[in-house]
């Protein structure tokens, strides 16, 4: 004898608006990444095809040759060592530029000191990095002071302008609120002034860093005896194009890593309240 039991049915779960929104967002992200990947494949493919067919492969080595050279240079330790040198220079130079930039930005709140620094900051912002790289190369040769000074001169003004704007727009209503509750000056600075300035500082760092990065490599090309820029110069002089392109690739990977990983992680960590605002 067989018994037939009705299959147990659970009520179908209705997709909430939130679920739907999340699904749409995920699909959207996947599509964006798909197109991005397609872009990479297309241009790398075009490059590989051109090498040896449209142009001599000694003049335009394909991506496969460049990646192979990259792996070789990585294995010999040349890439990590050049990375370390360049990054150390950027780190020290940018730290100095940050300190100078913040200090000048704070001093410029005074009317007279504003007049004192204003044109210097304008010159700092408008002068191309190439000019500072050339001047410091002529004055300092291959000494470390060259790239460091070039970074400070090209970057501090970006930080200064941002800090200055941040200080000008300090939220007086919040500071008054804190005063009325008897909150002390240190606590006010920590919880109101710093969080208010953070996005301005972050914008300054982001722009400043991208400038510092380029000018460092430029000074290395002109006058250093180590670092990514120096390796590029050597590769050019010896007509080793796969090596030259390898260093460009290294440059690109590092810039992408700093921009997409380091800075974005910092942004997510410190500015989550703005994301909630958008939501």
């Amino acid at each position, binding site marked *: 004898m067989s018994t037939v039991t009705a299959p147990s049915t659970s009520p179908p779960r209705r997709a909430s608006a939130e679920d739907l929104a999340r699904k749409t967002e995920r699909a959207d992200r996947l599509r964006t990444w798909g197109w991005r990947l397609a872009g990479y494949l297309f241009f790398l493919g075009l490059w590989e095809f051109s090498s040896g067919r449209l142009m001599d492969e000694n003049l335009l080595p394909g991506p496969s040759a460049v990646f192979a050279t990259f792996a070789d240079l990585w294995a010999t330790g040349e890439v990590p060592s050049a990375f370390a040198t360049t990054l150390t220079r950027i780190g020290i130079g940018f730290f100095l530029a940050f300190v100078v930039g913040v200090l000048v930005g704070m001093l410029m709140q005074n009317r007279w000191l504003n007049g004192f620094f204003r044109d210097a900051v304008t010159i700092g912002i408008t002068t191309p990095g190439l000019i500072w790289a050339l001047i410091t190369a002529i004055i300092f040769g291959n000494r470390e002071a060259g790239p460091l000074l070039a970074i400070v001169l090209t970057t501090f003004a970006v930080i200064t302008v941002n800090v200055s704007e941040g200080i000008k727009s300090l939220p007086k209503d*919040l500071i008054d*609120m804190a005063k*009325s*509750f*008897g909150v002390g000056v240190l606590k006010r600075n920590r919880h109101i002034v710093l969080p208010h300035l953070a996005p301005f500082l972050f914008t300054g760092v982001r722009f400043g860093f991208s400038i510092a990065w380029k000018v460092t490599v430029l000074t290395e090309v002109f006058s250093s005896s180590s670092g990514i820029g120096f390796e590029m110069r050597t590769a050019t002089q010896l007509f080793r194009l796969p090596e030259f392109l390898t260093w460009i690739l290294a440059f690109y990977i590092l810039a992408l890593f700093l921009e997409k990983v380091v800075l974005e992680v910092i942004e997510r960590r410190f500015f989550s*309240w703005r994301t*909630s*605002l958008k*939501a």
Partner: protein
Amino acid sequence: MADIKIVNLHKEFGAGADKVVALDDVNLELGGHVFVSVVGASGCGKSTLLNILSGIETPTNGQVTITQEGGPARAGYVFQSARLLPWRTVMDNLLFVQEDRSEPTRQRCQRYLDMVQLGDKGKKFPGELSGGMQQRVGIARAFSTEPDVLFMDEPFSHLDAITARSLRAELHHMWQETGKTVVFVTHDVSEAVELSNRILVFAKGGRLAEDIPMDLPFPRESADPDVALAKAEVFRTFERIGALTVR
């Protein structure tokens, strides 16, 4: 409950031809479990008075002392807009004005959030709340320091009528429950009559024109004839001091 003593208070802004007198020789004493409303036309010095009382601004002349049983009194302030730190959660906004972040302090903050019916919103950022909710957080913040005196500067003027009405009822309830001294600035005469037991009318030029006691029993409904009469009296005072004159 605090005691507030104001002697010959005078405040000016600007100098020379641009000089504006915001408060002119104000003398006043108030204290105990009172709800004092300060009313008057725009620019008559209501908010300046509150800013001086709370220490945000300093007087040009005169003296203000706020004491609690002879010692210094603690004050809380509710502003026209909520003035919350957008980068801190609701709970952290309350904790920001406390002296410590201990467990009892947290529990006290939570209690006041519950009181304004936002007990479950402690982890939200202000930007995620409606304007009315933000204003309630501002009220909870002021009460959470358990101040001896509470200053409120047109706290409901930016809100829609329904939200403002329910918050007024909440505020009255909290005032009765906690027994604080409240100084409440408003331009809304109905609001002043329904909430206060004393109304100070300020005239243009920052002069204290009238001090009207309000002894009607609570709760006060706006339809109640006694409440309507009291409002009429305040308006008559406005007329007498020239605050209603249209030129």
